């Protein structure tokens, strides 16, 4: 069988999601954001909600998420995405409304909005890309930076005496009455990507069914900020991030 017989449109088993446009994404090579964007695009498309989805992008590396996924978007001020999403969903209850935030946006300046939107049980999905560093501004410490991890504002390693402790937002979210689904996923392997996509779908469906708020955390890499190659960053993540931010469902009441 020669190559031309294989490379035919009816034989496609994998391609860029149709809801992703042709704009080259600005993320660093190997960045987890790209994979999470693909999953968001695929799930929205598969749910048939492309014309009813409204995303809220953060301040952070993903500020330009609105340039890549072909739905309507709003750009939020730093940390405030869950408040915007609340306003949108309350006034457009039949829309699929989600936020897409990094660890600085969600767990630092936005902690208040995150907790309260989740606790009010707003029918939205909060997507949390956690790579334990501030990527966009050049690699500073984040509230989820691990003890001992080196960043530009803790160059000798995070020290609890000076910097306090890393925050486990998913654990906090799982305690809140208003949440129906809280999960941690990752996107470094085919298996984890498959699981992550299912989790995202579950969260989106729960929000449309009026079950309450969901937090889908993606434990991710930042090879630029961590100063590692994409491959080594995945290894570092598996060795250090996964034990501290363990994957799996922390709360699931979606079938109640």
């Amino acid at each position, binding site marked *: 069988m020669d190559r031309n017989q294989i490379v035919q449109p009816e034989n496609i088993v994998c391609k860029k999601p149709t809801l992703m446009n042709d704009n*080259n994404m600005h993320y660093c090579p190997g960045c987890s954001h790209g994979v999470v964007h693909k999953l968001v695009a695929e799930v929205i498309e598969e749910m048939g909600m492309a014309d009813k989805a409204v995303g809220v992008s953060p301040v952070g590396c993903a500020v330009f998420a609105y340039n890549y996924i072909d739905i309507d978007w709003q750009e939020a001020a730093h940390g405030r995405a869950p408040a915007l999403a609340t306003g949108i969903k309350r006034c457009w209850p039949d829309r699929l409304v989600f936020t897409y935030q990094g660890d600085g946006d969600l767990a630092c300046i936005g902690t208040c909005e995150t907790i309260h939107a989740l606790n009010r049980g707003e029918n939205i999905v909060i997507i949390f890309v956690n790579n334990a560093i501030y990527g966009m501004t050049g690699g500073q410490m984040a509230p989820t930076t691990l003890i001992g991890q080196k960043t530009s504002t803790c160059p000798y390693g995070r020290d609890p005496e000076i910097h306090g402790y890393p925050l486990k937002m998913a654990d906090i979210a799982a305690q809140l009455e208003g949440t129906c689904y809280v999960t941690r996923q990752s996107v470094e392997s*085919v298996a984890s990507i498959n699981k992550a996509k299912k989790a995202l779908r579950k969260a989106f469906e729960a929000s449309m069914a009026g079950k309450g708020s969901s937090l889908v955390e993606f434990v991710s890499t930042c090879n630029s900020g961590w100063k590692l190659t994409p491959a080594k960053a995945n290894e570092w993540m598996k060795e250090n991030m996964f034990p501290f931010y363990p994957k799996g469902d922390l709360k699931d009441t979606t079938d109640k």
Partner: protein
Amino acid sequence: MKENFGFSLHFAHLLVPLQPISEDYHVLNKYIMAKMRGAIVVDTERCKGCQLCIIACPQKVIALANKVNLHGYPYVEAVNEEACVGCASCGIVCPDGCITVYRKKVEE
């Protein structure tokens, strides 16, 4: 057999139902046993040379080309396409959605 184009993770119906997999080895095994041949087309202007596809590929199909694209990134290419079974691991892990993966069953 109805096929969903563009929904990159919905290839399960082409094979025996996949058990929950944690290792790509199981993916590979099923494809080889089902006698699939694959091919990839790389969007070289989208590729950033992160090489995650190279690591994900169980068949050593892909390598970094000795060229750069218009953005200055070295991109990847299939150097060993005869070994490709169309498992799509490369396309799935690619952060930029650069790789279109084709698969066709080898006729007996």
